[in-house]
């Protein structure tokens, strides 16, 4: 089974429970392979949790879930050392972050302190407790969700922290027929319970390593940087995409190329991924909000204006 087939097996598996959300499944797998994390922003009840669980099951990964609430403490996330009077020592009890695939539900409901504990873990893949740094087992993939509707009692994530997420996705409602299909499948039993894994964790780690071999031509790198630069200069944008954003786009595009069965990245990959990678990394000016411009629209405009590299200026 080659890499593309493996990836498609995961996606097909997810599709068994997630009807009509193939693109979200694809992008989640892309983020997983690119060792990034996903921020899912959507109303409750469209299947965010189902999605993550299906993904975890497909890659036979350990699934953990953290439901964020305002009173959640960092130690509830990363774990805590508890004094054992028997041997008179502190024993570390790992928190839910120490899993392979973590669903951080409603991340904006908790205090910044707890948020940053999660985000540090996401970025560094380590947690520090009582001065002791512990590695989070690989693979490590966080899918955080936030509800865009209820803002009361929430702590919106600062932009610097949003930057930690490779992709920001929106599920959206299923179509009429899709929803009927959802009902049909859930009639007898919960389909998620019947899911089996399609690849092993080792396979996943292999994929994560091999994706780095996907060729990103210099012209493509140039294209990525061009796009990032343009977000920094756009009149609607207050804060543009950071170099970390460019890097994220490149990594994501490698994974996406692998998903498409190519061993090189094309501008199509970049164009497809750019809105998911860039839009949560920009802060728009208030004019944009008055004009009803969303970050996604800004990215689309930039994509339409930026020259796609189709020619080498210097012959090689």
């Amino acid at each position, binding site marked *: 089974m080659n890499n593309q087939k493996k990836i498609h097996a995961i996606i097909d598996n997810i599709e068994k429970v997630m009807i009509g959300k193939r693109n979200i499944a694809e992008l989640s797998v892309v983020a997983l392979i690119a060792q990034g994390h996903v921020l899912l922003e959507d109303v409750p009840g469209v299947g965010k949790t189902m999605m993550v669980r299906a993904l975890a099951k497909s890659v036979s990964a350990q699934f953990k879930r953290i439901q964020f609430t305002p009173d959640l403490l960092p130690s509830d996330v990363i774990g805590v050392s508890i004094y054992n009077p028997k041997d008179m020592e502190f024993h570390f009890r790992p928190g839910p972050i120490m899993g392979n695939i973590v669903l951080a539900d409603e991340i904006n409901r908790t205090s910044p302190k707890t948020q940053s504990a999660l985000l540090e873990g996401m970025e560094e893949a380590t947690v520090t407790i009582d001065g002791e740094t512990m590695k989070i087992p690989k693979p490590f993939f966080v899918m955080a969700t936030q509800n865009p509707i209820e803002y009361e009692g929430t702590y919106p994530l600062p932009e610097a922290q949003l930057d930690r997420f490779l992709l920001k996705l929106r599920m959206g409602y299923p179509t009429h027929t899709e929803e009927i299909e959802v009902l049909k499948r859930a009639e007898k039993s919960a389909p998620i319970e019947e899911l089996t894994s399609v690849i092993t964790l080792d396979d996943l780690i292999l994929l994560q390593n091999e994706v780095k071999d996907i060729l990103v031509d210099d012209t493509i790198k140039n294209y990525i940087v061009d796009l990032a630069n343009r977000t920094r200069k756009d009149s609607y944008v207050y804060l543009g995409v950071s170099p970390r954003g460019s890097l994220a786009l490149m990594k994501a595009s490698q994974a996406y190329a692998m998903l498409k069965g190519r061993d*090189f990245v094309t501008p199509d990959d970049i164009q497809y991924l750019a809105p998911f990678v860039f839009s949560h990394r920009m802060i728009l000016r208030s004019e944009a909000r008055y004009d009803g411009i969303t970050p996604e629209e800004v990215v689309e405009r930039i994509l339409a204006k930026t020259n796609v590299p189709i020619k080498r200026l210097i012959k090689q």
Partner: protein
Amino acid sequence: MKNNFQNKWVKAVFYILVFFLLREWLLPVLELTDTNYLSIFLAFIVLCLVFSFFSVPWWLSGPGKLLYIGWILVYIYTNEVFFTGEAISFLYNDFITNTSALINRDWPAVTDSFRTVLFFSLLWMTAYLIHHWINVRKNIFLFFFMTVVFIAALDTFSPYAGDGSILRVMILGLLLSGLLKVIKILDQNRLSVSSEKYGSLVIPLIIIVAISGSIGYFLPKANPVWDDPVPFIQSFAEGAGSGLSGAGGIRKIGYGEDDSVLGGGFQSDSTLVFEAVVKTGQYWKIETKDTYTSKGWEQSVASNEIRNYTAGDIIDTGIPTGPVEDQDMAQYTFELPYPFLMYPYGSVVANAQEGTSFSVSTNTQKIETYQQNGNAVELNEYEIGFSEPTYSLTALRETSEDSLGELGAEFDRYLQLPETLPERVRELAQSITEKETNLYDKAKAIERYFPRNGFVYDQTNVSVPTEDQDYVDQFLFDTKRGYCDNFSTSMVVMLRSLDIPARWVKGFAEGEQMQNDNGDRVYQVTNNNAHSWVEAYLPGIGWMPFEPTIGFSGAGNIDYDIEQDSTEPPEEQVVPKQPSKPVKPNAADNKSISERLTETMESFMDWISDNRGRIILWSLIAIAFGIVMFRIRNKWMPKLLVPYYRLRKDNWHSFESSYHRLLKQLSLYGISRNEGQTLQSYANYVDGFFGSKDMKTLTNAYEKGFYGKKIESQEWLKLRESWENLINRTSG
């Protein structure tokens, strides 16, 4: 892949055709260089072709050819028939000599035999090249085209007549190209056919070549629209138009004896001829000529009377003189002495060194100078007393045509005109003068005709009449551009056509006015002042000078003895006075190359300024044509691109460039890629537009090579097919 050249018979046909094509190269070379031994060279070509026909390995064919060359050298240069000891030593010595000559770069020292060797090597290379073209490229068109160019160039620029040759070349070349094309098509489709099958395949081709060849041969052929370019280029380089032999080209100005062929530009020459101390500027007359030949002037041998005078005698030149009390003196000092006098109008007496005598020819009014012993002498100094004639305007206006009939037979030679003189010259003279009632005004009307009708004074761009052209006619109706010879000759001819006796006068214009140490006026006359003008005979008045040349004003003095309110304003200065630029080309010219170059440049610049309108017009047309061609380039470009990319190697670079070419063509066609559009989405668009899958195929291959750097081993042939499909659609 099976090669259709495995069929020896087919291959043999090609080699025979090639042999005849090569022969067409050899023939003119040998003819033009006066080389015999055609058969020897042909035999060498045969040898080369036979070797390559049988694919003889190089280690056998090379020495074989060398042996042949060596033997031929021996045969030609030593008359030995075999490789005797003598012959071998000849070859050896020749080799040594030429090698050392080459090493020392002593090119003239190489011997003829070595040149022959070089020629053989050339043939060898050519034969090899053709072998390559036929066997590998399977395309002989380049060689065919070069042969046509070669024959055409030789036919144009050398004595070699390529009439028959070009026909043979065309037929051979068309046959060869066509036959090879058939082979190529067969090979491309991996077909292998028997020689019979091949023969039947090419029958239509042979028939078409035969029919078109014979139609071309038997059809009447138009004469060349352009003149033979060689004389044109030569004459253009020398600054003159098409010319008669011997004339044309640029000559140096100055006084010369031979006026039989006039025309052509000349070069100025400010060499001082003489200085004359005199109160007023004069025209310095030397002689007149009476017979116009339609190309120039000659002197008839009519009854000539020689009148001899000695110094101090009153000389009769046949020209009226002014009153004695107005007599003036002109003192000459010569730098370039001549054996005759240059005298002002109204001359009466000449003084020179002791013992000089003067003889006046009534025929030419030339006053030649002699010593006592009868030998001609070139005087360095002399002086002439003269009294300028003054013509009474009243008397001039009383002259009438009626009196012309009473003139004696001695004036016949001043009415001579060549029979070939075009009628329109006479008609022009009539129309110029028809309003005038007296002879003087008629002559004046002709004199004034030139400046008022767009004639231009020009010393350089003056054409020489062609064989069947009249010098005057050409000037009056075609060129309207010339110097004093043109103007004066034309006026004489027109006067004569009106039956007014007239003759052509040669001499010098007045020259540049200076002052000498004594404060006297001195006129410096240089070769630039050489000039020609007109004398007309008005009954009752006598001979009177006229000056038709634009920019000169040197007619006879008019006594306006009637009131100034006369209808005729006196002596109109129609044209601003120019520095007297005279005009009698002298034959000799020894110009350096740099001078010639400057002349050529000047004449080129003049040509540009003269033809500015036409140049601009043609440039505009060319630009307009260029713009139109550029705008519709998507229509014709694919026709060029397809064969161009077929010729290129099948590799990534060709593909890359062809792909970009296709993108350009598509955008010219009207379906262009937006700057932010990826190739894939563009390919979908294009394929949707044309209903094809070719663009997708090409784009996938391109992306694989470009973004994926996999530039090897793609299916170039298939890609080219897709590419040709698309590019041909863009021209639709």
